[in-house]
């Protein structure tokens, strides 16, 4: 392809002084990325690190010669595998994309056409580039599905996107990228939206593919632990400029730039929650709640049970953490407490009063004192209302002081500058939106705030700031928090109590101190082990330990332990008897057939 | 302003048989019918004249001429003896007999038929056969002009016992090959027609295009050969393109009727003032571009043989009108609205011009334009001031009897004048032509001065045609030769100029 130099092989990807500009609607052009340069040698994996909105995706897209609607590549040179990307015509670009360079998008759920079966979409690059006939392409795709450890690789291709989980889609997308055996693969935050256990499966699949196909890669992420596992070198971006570039080890252990140092520091786990909570009557008492979707069977149970007999006491002034993998029912629980998801059995008490299942039947005071901060700040803020209009409405609605001063005070509480007040949500960064969302909840002067994965989409620095903020507010306003996450680090650093959910069952309930000591439920242990660490050999270790291909689980038994199919310690009783709940010496409540000694 | 007719109709060569002609008239709707009794629109009349014959026919000066009747005789003008032509056959082959005539005329008396001439038929006391070819009609009162009544298209003769009219079975010059209401009718020459010089073209298709522009375009593009009602504004253009326009001075008029039994019409000054407010010259020039004759507030047009030539012409006189109005006290009063409608040709324009002239002398007139459909049944003659539109009647007598006699059903201004009624009765049995004319003159004077009717203009009918169509002559009876063009036209195939003069 290019002339091989005897001493230093020329880089496969060479980016020189790349500048990108964007324009929103009819507004002026603003720079997104300025003067970015880096090289990637053949066979190397480069990580692009940086906060949300720093231009990572934009650069990754530029490598394929593509700029999003309203954006433009305004300068620089881009050479990828011998092609001058910026000077190709449309036909050459079509041949280049998908063939020489493949892209794995940030949000797999949105990147598949909802109206076409997955197999059609996966083999499409091979077909449009006339690499192989259809039959061969299907075989190749099935082989890749197997490589990606997808369940039932022979039939999964016939499914539609909505029939697969996020993790599965992410792996199918990887298969789609690899089917043409491209020279360069770009991963754009492929695991950000996944929970830790699924993340390991996906990362493992990538690893395997990298070994087998030997492509050059660019890996976009804001998770430093993943960088440590996947990349050889890293580029740190902030505000569209390169802050630092170096080998992964150097960046993670000896960063030279202040911003990189902050990033690394923020990803170190540390405890924020210092004061123990005084024991009191629970502020919110959830008892044996049963939630499901679909119709009601003749026995009075929902067709699809999501939450089964879950009980949670939340004390005043404490932070209760809920952890579990994707789809285990965390959001469902939050929604039930918030009154937008009816439950079919069980009860809830709030501030000593029974809490109606339907939000419309709750008293205004209950509504005011129980506030929800939802996961995706993008969707929860009205895109047509400015920050101050949003906040002012909440204040006036609950009869609070709605003056400019009050609004400024609330923005101040979430550490947002007052200048932001007149902006629309689209003009805010992800972290800012999440804070506005928080501010809106706080404006109601709540007693309990329900937080549904509010840090999942944020980079470490911003996420850390939000966690700090939560703890500060807890101290200042003696708020209670119900904190849902799948990030064990975050959980450890802020919570007083933790509930571990699996498939709608609360498998372990313990104090944060008890979480540090054995024994644990097998699932809790697995979660623990799945939290990525900065050690470069962590991923290999985990894979070695668990053996690969974990997602082979069948359906849980009708009357036994829900975790049985995946449990490495399952015994005969697990298949037919519901596990008993017992209290461990550490005060943790564990639902398992095994004893404390066996689990230690 | 009546200029000479197009040169083409004046080239005198002998008529020839043959050819297909397509003609477009103005109105056409679902209520198009082959039932002579119910025909009420121009297209209906034209179609009726193609398939049916009457006992008499009206010529270019509206004089009654025998048609199916060989003779009409009466001594007292009450009992009329009619002798039918022999050797006349219906399209289905049946011969014409007196029974057909009796049936055809008696039908009009049956209200469920919905006849347009029900009123006129009710004036006939008995109608009976007198032998196979003789008919005797006895009237309620004497009427010397009765033959013209029978000349009305509606009194066409149909086969005895006909109740279904999806096909026409008449004695006329054409047979009906196709009839789709509101769309078209196709006529083929009747080989057995009793009058050998009465029809020339082989086939004639009659369609109706109500959209003015579209009708002109059809003529200009050569899609049709003849159109009725050329707009005065397009006459020059049509002629410039080598097509001909025939101008027929007809007695059609659009008039303002002020009811004399209610509202301001009870005051003679008011009526007089309104008549003076009509700027007739301006209406002639801007509405009809000169294609009309000035009206003098009485219903006979200048070329009518009974026209009163001595009456002074009413002229636009705003000062006098203002004086009369202030004298009557209506100048500053709110007046009932002026009702007009596209249904009454030109009435909206007249109303607007009148309104503007009234505004100048400080009189506030509200113009209310009504929808065309339902105008005649819902608005006409129901409001204190409204416009009407009257087609030429077969005779002066009919005009007076239907629209001005105290008991007339269409006495638009609700005018009651005993002297007029008396003159009317006298005139009907006056055999002396000159004396009758004198009576008519007096009646016209009475209408002119007393009736609440303002007639500003008589409309000149304009019909456009391709020069290869020959035989068209203006008639007073209405557009396209009094709706009877089908019998006269012929096609000059040698004229290949195709629009180049």
């Amino acid at each position: 392809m290019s002339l091989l130099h005897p001493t230093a092989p020329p880089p496969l990807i060479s980016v020189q002084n790349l500048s990108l500009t964007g324009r929103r609607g009819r507004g002026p052009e603003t720079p997104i990325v300025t003067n970015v340069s880096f090289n990637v040698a053949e066979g190397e994996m480069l990580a692009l690190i940086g906060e949300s909105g720093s231009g990572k995706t934009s650069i990754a897209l530029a490598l394929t010669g593509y700029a999003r609607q309203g954006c433009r590549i305004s300068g620089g040179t881009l050479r990828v595998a011998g092609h001058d990307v910026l000077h190709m015509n449309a036909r050459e670009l079509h041949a280049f994309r998908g063939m020489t360079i493949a892209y794995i998008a940030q949000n797999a759920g949105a990147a598949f056409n909802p109206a076409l079966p997955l197999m059609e979409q996966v083999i499409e690059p091979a077909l449009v580039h006339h690499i192989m006939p259809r039959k061969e392409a299907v075989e190749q795709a099935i082989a890749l599905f197997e490589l990606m450890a997808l369940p039932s690789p022979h039939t999964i291709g016939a499914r539609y996107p909505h029939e697969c989980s996020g993790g599965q889609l992410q792996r199918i997308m990887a298969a789609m990228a690899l089917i043409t055996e491209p020279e360069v693969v770009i991963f754009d935050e492929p695991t950000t939206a996944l929970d830790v256990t699924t993340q390991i499966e996906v990362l493992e699949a990538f690893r395997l593919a990298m070994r087998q196909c030997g492509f050059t890669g660019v890996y976009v992420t804001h998770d430093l632990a993943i960088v440590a596992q996947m990349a050889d070198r890293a580029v740190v971006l902030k505000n569209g400029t390169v802050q630092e570039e170096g080998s992964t080890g150097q960046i993670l252990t000896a960063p030279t730039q202040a911003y990189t140092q902050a990033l690394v520091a923020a990803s170190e786990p540390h405890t924020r929650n210092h004061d123990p909570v005084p024991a009191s009557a629970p502020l919110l008492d959830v008892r044996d709640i049963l939630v499901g979707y679909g119709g009601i069977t003749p026995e009075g149970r929902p067709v699809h049970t999501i939450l089964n007999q879950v009980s949670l006491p939340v004390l005043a002034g404490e932070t209760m953490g809920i952890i579990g993998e994707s789809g285990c029912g965390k959001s469902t629980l939050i929604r039930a407490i918030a009154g937008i998801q009816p439950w079919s059995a069980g009860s809830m008490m709030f501030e000593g009063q029974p809490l109606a299942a339907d939000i419309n039947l709750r008293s205004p005071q209950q509504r005011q004192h129980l506030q929800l901060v939802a996961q995706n700040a993008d969707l929860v803020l009205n895109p047509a209302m400015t920050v101050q209009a949003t906040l002012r409405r909440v204040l006036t609605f609950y009869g609070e002081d709605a003056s400019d001063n009050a609004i400024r005070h609330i923005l101040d509480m979430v550490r947002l500058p007052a200048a932001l007040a007149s902006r629309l949500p689209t003009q805010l960064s992800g972290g800012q939106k999440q804070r506005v969302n928080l501010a809106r909840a706080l404006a109601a002067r709540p007693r309990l705030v329900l937080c549904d994965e509010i840090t999942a989409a944020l980079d470490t620095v911003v996420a850390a700031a939000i966690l700090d903020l939560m703890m500060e507010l807890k101290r200042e306003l003696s708020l209670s928090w119900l904190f849902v996450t799948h990030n064990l680090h975050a959980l450890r650093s802020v919570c007083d109590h933790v509930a571990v959910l699996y498939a709608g069952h609360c498998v372990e309930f313990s104090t944060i101190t008890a979480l540090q000591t054995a024994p644990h439920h097998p699932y809790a242990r697995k979660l623990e082990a799945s939290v990525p660490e900065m050690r470069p050999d962590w991923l290999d270790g985990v894979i070695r330990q668990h053996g690969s291909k974990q997602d082979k689980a069948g359906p849980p038994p009708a009357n036994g332990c829900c975790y049985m199919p995946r449990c490495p310690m399952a015994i005969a009783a697990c298949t037919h008897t519901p596990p008993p709940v017992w209290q461990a010496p550490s005060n943790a409540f564990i639902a398992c057939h095994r004893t404390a000694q066996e689990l230690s | 302003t009546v200029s000479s007719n197009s040169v083409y109709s004046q080239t005198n060569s002998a008529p020839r048989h043959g050819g297909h002609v397509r003609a477009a008239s103005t109105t056409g709707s679902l209520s198009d019918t082959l039932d002579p009794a119910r025909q009420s629109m121009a297209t209906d009349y034209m179609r009726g004249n193609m398939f049916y014959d009457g006992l008499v026919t009206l010529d270019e000066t509206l004089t009654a001429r025998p048609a199916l009747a060989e003779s009409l005789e009466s001594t007292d003008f009450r009992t009329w003896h009619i002798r039918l032509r022999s050797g006349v056959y219906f399209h289905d082959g049946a011969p014409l007999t007196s029974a057909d005539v009796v049936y055809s005329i008696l039908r009009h008396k049956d209200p469920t038929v919905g006849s347009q001439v029900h009123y006129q038929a009710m004036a006939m006391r008995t109608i009976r056969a007198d032998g196979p070819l003789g008919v005797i009609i006895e009237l309620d009162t004497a009427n010397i002009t009765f033959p013209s009544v029978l000349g009305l298209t509606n009194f066409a003769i149909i086969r005895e016992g006909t109740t279904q009219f999806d096909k026409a079975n008449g004695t006329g010059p054409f047979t009906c090959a196709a009839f789709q209401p509101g769309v078209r009718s196709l006529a083929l020459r009747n080989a057995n027609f009793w009058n050998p010089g009465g029809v020339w073209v082989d086939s004639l298709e009659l369609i109706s295009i109500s959209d003015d522009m579209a009708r002109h375009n059809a003529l200009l593009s050569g899609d049709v050969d003849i159109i009725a009602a050329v707009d005065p504004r397009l006459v020059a253009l049509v002629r410039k393109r080598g097509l001909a326009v025939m101008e027929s001075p007809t007695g059609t008029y659009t008039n303002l009727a002020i009811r004399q039994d209610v509202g301001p019409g009870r005051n003679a000054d008011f009526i007089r003032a309104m008549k003076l407010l009509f700027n007739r010259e301006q209406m002639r020039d801007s509405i009809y571009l000169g294609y009309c004759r000035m009206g003098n507030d009485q219903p006979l047009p200048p070329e009518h043989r009974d026209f009163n030539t001595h009456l002074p012409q009413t002229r636009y006189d705003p000062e006098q009108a203002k004086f009369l109005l202030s004298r009557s006290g209506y100048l500053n009063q709110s007046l009932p609205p002026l009702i007009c409608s596209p249904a009454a040709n030109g009435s909206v324009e007249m109303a607007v011009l009148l309104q503007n002239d009234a505004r100048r002398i400080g009189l506030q007139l509200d113009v209310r334009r009504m929808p065309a459909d339902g105008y005649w049944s819902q608005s006409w003659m129901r409001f204190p001031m409204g416009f009407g539109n009257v087609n030429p009647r077969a005779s002066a007598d009919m005009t007076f009897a239907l629209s001005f006699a105290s008991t007339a059903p269409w006495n638009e201004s609700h005018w009651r004048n005993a002297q007029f009624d008396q003159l009317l009765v006298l005139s009907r049995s006056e055999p002396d032509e000159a004396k009758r004319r004198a009576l008519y003159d007096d009646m016209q004077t009475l209408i002119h001065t007393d009736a609440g009717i303002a007639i500003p203009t008589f409309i000149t009918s304009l019909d456009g045609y391709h020069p290869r169509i020959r035989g068209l002559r203006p008639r007073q009876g209405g557009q396209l030769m009094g709706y009877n063009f089908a019998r006269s036209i012929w096609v000059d195939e040698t004229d290949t100029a195709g629009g180049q003069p």
Partner: protein
Amino acid sequence: MMLSRPLHRLLPLRQTPVLLALFWLLLAVTGPLIAPCPPGEVVSSTVFAPISSTHLLGTDYLGRDVLTRLLFGTSSTVLLCAVATVLACGAGTFLGIMAALKQGLTDTLLSRFMDGVISIPSLLSGLVAVATFGSSVPVLVLAMACIYMPGSYRTSRMLALSIVRKDFILSARMRGEKTGYLVLREILPNMTGPVLADVGLRFIYAVRLLSNLSFLGVGLQPPQTDLGSLTRENLLGLVYGAPAVIAPALTIAILTVGLNLALDGKGQRQ
């Protein structure tokens, strides 16, 4: 920013659609005042006269001054159609969003009713309204508004259906907000673009319906007139290329196209 709120409130005035609408409204109000002649006055003995210094846009089919007629026609067209469109789209949008919000029986009943209304030919409804309640400007405006409301209802219901599922509506509902607030403050601002585009189209339809009604004789009463009727009554002038027919047609085009383009632009910016 927060301190300069009065200024901020004036900001919408700088937007093109608003400016354009203001211009036409101004013309509508002042048009009859600056017209050179009375509207019914015959000023020339030539009909369909071409442009001249005495009659800037020539004369019409009766010899009246076209500029005068045009100013009067623009005035009534703009005023009537604007009011009718605003009424139709206001009510239609509100009901449409409400139906999407409430779902269930409200939605079904409203939608079926609107479907029924929409499928009755508009000319028939117009005729009947005027025949029953008499021909007056309020009746005309109301009839036009009723005829175009179902269309607007359909559009906004479709748009709102995807919005009411969004989380921010849920959070407003959790607060216990009333329907009116939800419709007007939470949902409507998120669909202004398409709704405005719809308003533009309905305005065009209203102009057209007004002229058709006038043609049938149930529209505006003389000497009032509207642009569509002006075009139609002077249609014969087309063969002479008379400004009497071209001017009102052009005015309609400029009025409606301009407004629509401006509204489109507004929609795109959102």
